[in-house]
């Protein structure tokens, strides 16, 4: 399988402060790849290095087999980028900005501009300054896709979009993907990553913790449980294999569990509970798990 992005020991320090350390992963041609981690973990630093906005301290990254720093303009012809926060020149109309954007690519993008903005329900004749955050984001989306890029890089793409528009946007991304575009998206919202991505890389404190397919992450299937007990039990009642991050507060027991759920239900059979919750743990919690594993 061909790799569209190859990142090899990419490291970036801001002075003495860590940005990212030895980040390595590959993104295959035609896949939707998720890049997840909490804020400040290094997602944006990695993406900004790929886009040659910042320079790596060491290591390298290749896009389409070309060095991402040396061949940045060449690579950019085939890349569409949507930043997490979108700001555009003062006093411009949406259509002017999109035309300016299109003028950088040596092809006619007017049809795409039209169809994309219709899809996203974007008024081309409004001034960008007057748009709401979500509508500005739409300008960013159209701007990032108008030249039919082979690689789409998205940094926190859905913040600010209402659920309906998110849906449209995800459908759009899936169509782009079917057209042949490879997609790299960073996010801290696990559900959207699970919905779209085939594989993910998890980053924490500037280091890649794991690179895995969504399918196998799901196999590992973490659940967060919380019980309020009626029957008095010992604090280590739930301390069985697969339980992590066990917290006991009076008769309230909470933990993250990975493994055969029947293990837990069997434990419950002999006792009485007042209430129980079973959730997908949020990313932060899965993260904590990976984090404690490393220590």
């Amino acid at each position, binding site marked *: 399988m061909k790799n569209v992005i190859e990142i090899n020991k990419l490291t970036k320090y801001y002075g003495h402060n860590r940005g990212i350390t030895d980040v390595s992963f590959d993104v295959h041609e035609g896949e939707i790849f998720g890049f997840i981690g909490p804020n400040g973990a290094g997602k944006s630093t990695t993406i900004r290095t790929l886009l040659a*906005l910042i320079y790596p301290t060491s290591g390298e990254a290749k896009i389409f087999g070309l060095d991402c720093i040396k061949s940045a303009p060449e690579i950019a012809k085939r890349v569409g980028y949507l930043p997490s926060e979108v*700001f555009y020149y003062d006093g411009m109309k949406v259509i002017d900005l999109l035309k300016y954007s299109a003028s950088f690519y040596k092809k006619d993008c007017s049809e795409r501009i039209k169809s994309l903005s219709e899809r996203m329900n974007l008024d081309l004749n409004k001034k960008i300054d007057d748009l709401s955050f979500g509508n500005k984001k739409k300008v960013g989306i159209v701007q990032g896709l108008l030249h039919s890029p082979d690689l789409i890089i998205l940094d926190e793409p859905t913040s600010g979009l209402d659920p309906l528009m998110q849906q449209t946007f995800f459908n759009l991304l899936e169509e782009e993907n079917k057209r042949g575009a490879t997609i790299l998206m960073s996010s801290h919202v696990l559900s959207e990553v699970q919905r779209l991505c085939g594989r993910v890389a998890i980053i924490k404190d500037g280091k890649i913790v794991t690179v895995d397919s969504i399918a196998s992450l799901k196999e590992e299937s973490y659940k967060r449980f919380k019980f309020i007990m009626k029957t008095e039990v010992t604090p280590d009642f739930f301390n069985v294999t697969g339980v992590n991050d066990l917290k006991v507060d009076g008769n309230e027991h909470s933990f993250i569990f990975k493994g055969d759920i029947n293990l837990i239900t069997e434990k419950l059979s002999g006792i009485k509970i007042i209430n129980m919750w079973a959730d997908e743990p949020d990313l932060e919690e899965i993260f904590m798990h990976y984090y404690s594993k490393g220590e």
Partner: protein
Amino acid sequence: MNIYRFELKSNFKSFLVWVLCLSFVTIGYMAFFPMIHDSIGDFTKMLNNFNPILKDAMGIATSTFSTAIGFYGFVFIYVSLMMAIQAMNLGIGILSKEERERTADFLITKPVSRITIVSSKLLAALTVFLATDIIFSIVTYIQLSNISDENVLKPYLLINLSLLFIQILCFSIGFFISTILKKIRAVLPISLGIVFAFFAISRFLINDDNKVAKYFSPFSYFDTNKIIKDNTLDITSVVVFAAVVIVCISASYVLYHRRNVHSV
């Protein structure tokens, strides 16, 4: 070329305001000349009572008020001050605005090299200066030729050529500064500060005895009274000017090429 066109478009309004204001203010000042000329005897007497240092500081030479071009040379000091502010503003602002207004991500992730970005912006600024100077020169010359008894086209053009040099010099210095600084929140305070510092240096600290010091302020590279007298530009100043501009601009290219563009 699209960046160049875009820059011209976005700078057009401010260019128009500058060139119109400057032209009208200069015409207004020049309109006083016939009046002063008529009572030149009293006027010279009064000026001779001035402290010589003050006279120097205000750019008044003995010949200043006796001829129209001499008077223009006097007005020119303040014209050049204004033009220098415009140039410094543009120099500090034209590149840094992308990061200040957070559009740098947009521009740099487009298929253009940073070299092209810098070159387009330099070219746009140069176009603005040339357009400003040409329009200003034509408008002002119409009036100057009306009030002047002799043909002053050559010294007039030389003086205005030195204006272009001052603009380019201020612009280059500003451009260089903008690539050194990590973040510029507001352009105007910085550019005003620097230009007024240069102006003060040229007015109060530099005199003819000091041959090197004059290169520390863009305003003192070319002395208008001297241009009128010699009818030529000081060649050493031209060489130093070129050297400073080349150093500033090449350094800017290198610095911007290596620059880390951070998100906010």
